[in-house]
């Protein structure tokens, strides 16, 4: 049998706590390997309250904050919180940290710099390992570090961040897109960073984030994916990934309606309004963007794409359903009922 494909699901803490636990238990029951609990302090319930409760209500699922950041909690608080969740769910936790997106923008600060990421990751790793660190001249350590293995992963979406992850982290959550050209290019950056630290890519855990949306028809899935496809493919990607993805897009004038969507296109509270605001992008370009960004289509489409990508060694996925703050119940069902059986038949589960 091939190496299995592992699949983790993003879970936003937006539903009432009871529903949230039911959802996380359904993620476990559906056969997912892990659940990443969104960390966005204004929009979600506290990540560590959710992780702590999930640790006591699940038995197999890997749990991680998805993703936390180096500025809303002190590094020592992050390390302590991870060690605490690991105590409740030994061997089932990861630490995933990025530069911050809505957790930064909603409090009026910029995402963390790579220097801040480097410092925070070094501190958290040392504290979890039971080592002493220097806090502005005061030696600090985590008194209850127990030597449990808690992988420290960095979420990265740009070349320099990916290199840094390759250099300093135990692994990387790559938010780059999901096609062969992108995979090859991203692994190149990762390898460059790993080599800088005398390591190999094979030594790192690599998780591929896939923006995911399933529907009864491919066309409907793509329509629903419009806000995310336009946000990431046109507004935010810049030059990093369009080339590797093999895409050539015309230049668009961005209409005012896009700026009016709160808090932004891909996190819109009113999804239909966000879809309407993307009408300036034709369907064929949306289709190309969807394929480059992730898993968009019917459940069968998604299963086929995962099998294809697994041939390139992409075997560790993190699903990010389009509507960031909506409970991912349709995707949980689609994977449970269609995608996982398909992967099983292909020898990948």
């Amino acid at each position, binding site marked *: 049998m091939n190496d299995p494909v592992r699949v983790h699901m993003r879970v936003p*803490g*937006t539903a*009432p*706590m009871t529903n949230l636990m039911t959802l996380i238990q359904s993620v476990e029951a559906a056969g997912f390997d892990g659940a990443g609990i969104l960390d966005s*302090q*204004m*929009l*979600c*319930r*506290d990540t*560590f*309250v*959710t*992780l*702590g*409760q999930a640790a*006591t209500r699940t038995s197999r699922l890997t749990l991680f904050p998805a993703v936390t950041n180096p*500025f*809303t*909690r*002190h590094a*020592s*608080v992050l*390390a*302590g*919180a991870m*060690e*605490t*969740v690991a*105590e*409740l769910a030994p061997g089932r936790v990861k630490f995933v940290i990025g530069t911050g997106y809505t957790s930064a*923008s*909603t*409090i*009026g*600060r910029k995402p963390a710099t790579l220097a801040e990421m480097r410092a925070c990751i070094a501190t958290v790793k040392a504290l979890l390992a039971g080592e002493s660190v220097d*806090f*502005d*001249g*005061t030696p*600090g*350590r*985590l*008194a*209850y570090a127990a030597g449990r293995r808690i992988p420290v992963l960095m979420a990265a979406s740009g070349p320099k961040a990916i290199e840094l992850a390759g250099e300093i982290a135990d692994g990387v959550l790559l938010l780059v897109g999901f096609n062969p050209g992108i995979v090859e290019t991203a692994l190149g950056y990762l390898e460059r960073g790993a080599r800088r630290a005398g390591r190999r890519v094979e030594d790192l855990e690599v998780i591929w984030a896939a923006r995911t949306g399933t529907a009864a028809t491919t066309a409907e899935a793509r329509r629903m994916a419009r806000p995310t496809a336009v946000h990431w493919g046109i507004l935010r990607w810049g030059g990093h990934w369009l080339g590797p993805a093999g895409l050539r897009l015309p230049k668009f004038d961005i209409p005012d309606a896009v700026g009016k969507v709160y808090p932004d296109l891909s996190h819109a509270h009113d999804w239909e309004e966000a879809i309407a605001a993307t009408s300036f992008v034709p369907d064929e370009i949306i289709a190309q963007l969807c394929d480059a960004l992730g898993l968009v289509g019917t459940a069968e489409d998604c299963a086929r794409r995962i099998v294809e990508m697994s041939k390139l060694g992409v075997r560790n996925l993190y699903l990010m359903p389009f509507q960031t703050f909506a409970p991912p119940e349709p995707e949980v069902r689609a994977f449970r009922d269609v995608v996982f059986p398909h992967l099983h038949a292909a020898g990948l589960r």
Partner: protein
Amino acid sequence: MPRVPRARFGVVFLPESLSDFGALCREAEDNGFDLLGVADSQSVFRELYVALTLAALNTSRIRLGPLVTNPLTRHLVVTASAISSIDELSGGRAMLGIGSGDSAIFTLGAPPATVAGLEDSMATLGQLTGGAAIERDGRRWQVHRSTRRVPVYLAAEGPRTLELAGRVADGVIVGLGLTPDVIRLSLAAIERGARAAGRTLADLDVWWFAKTNVADTREAAVGPITMALAASANHAFRFTLEGKGVPPDLHEKIKSLQREYNSHQHEIAGAGNARLTERWGLTEFLVDRFGIVGTPDDCVAQIRRAMDAGAHQFVITSFVPDPRAFVRRWSREVAAAAS
């Protein structure tokens, strides 16, 4: 004749392990405690909000919250979001104890919050947990799911902070001591603050922080909690000894204790801090000032003395080797007799 309020008790737990933490919290509830506090010191104890999650899941009546957190190690919106999550999980039982920061920040080499910083933080946390949107740093801060304003309790040890509590807090955890003169001095400061805001003492939920243990002999009770008494000496007098009712001949001894206090071993039984009270000849002073400790009869006498001076609600520490046995014994042999 005015009715004498009965004594009520809250308890602070140190999350030193989570293996039996839920059962410990249930024990406190089953034994009649009204308030359950969890210490926040990330380098020494397990994560506050994970511990509070277990506390909320394992109890059904008791009020619970951090005793105490600080405004520095987590962004205020994170703190608001976290305590609102606990409030939701516990069905509206959360309270938020906050102070200027002790070992949580001293282990990071960071300075504590100022009085002005505390005032601003308390106002912000109250608004955010109440679901209000506030303008900060050019953005609109709002914890979207909050539906109930979580009451904010200020841990206060000096006249200025006690006045601040009187002015703006929903409640206060008084940490200046339990001797009658100190209780009167503290109540006067809280009342000054309350009056300045057009309120009265009765508008505040006032709790008195006590370092506690009960045993068959006084010595056996004091011995295991000398590190907790040292922690009080270190914390309550760290900015100044003036205006706090401390005999002048003890000032130098207290300063010496503070110089030798190790925040990395904060409240850890048997560690170096446990020897500081004897070393500086402060044990008796600190027992009298901050303790309710001794035989059950000793404890009841100390509680009655404090109640005669105007204190009625006590947050006791359970920083002893077997906290479950302690809360049971306290409930049966001390609380029952004191009430």
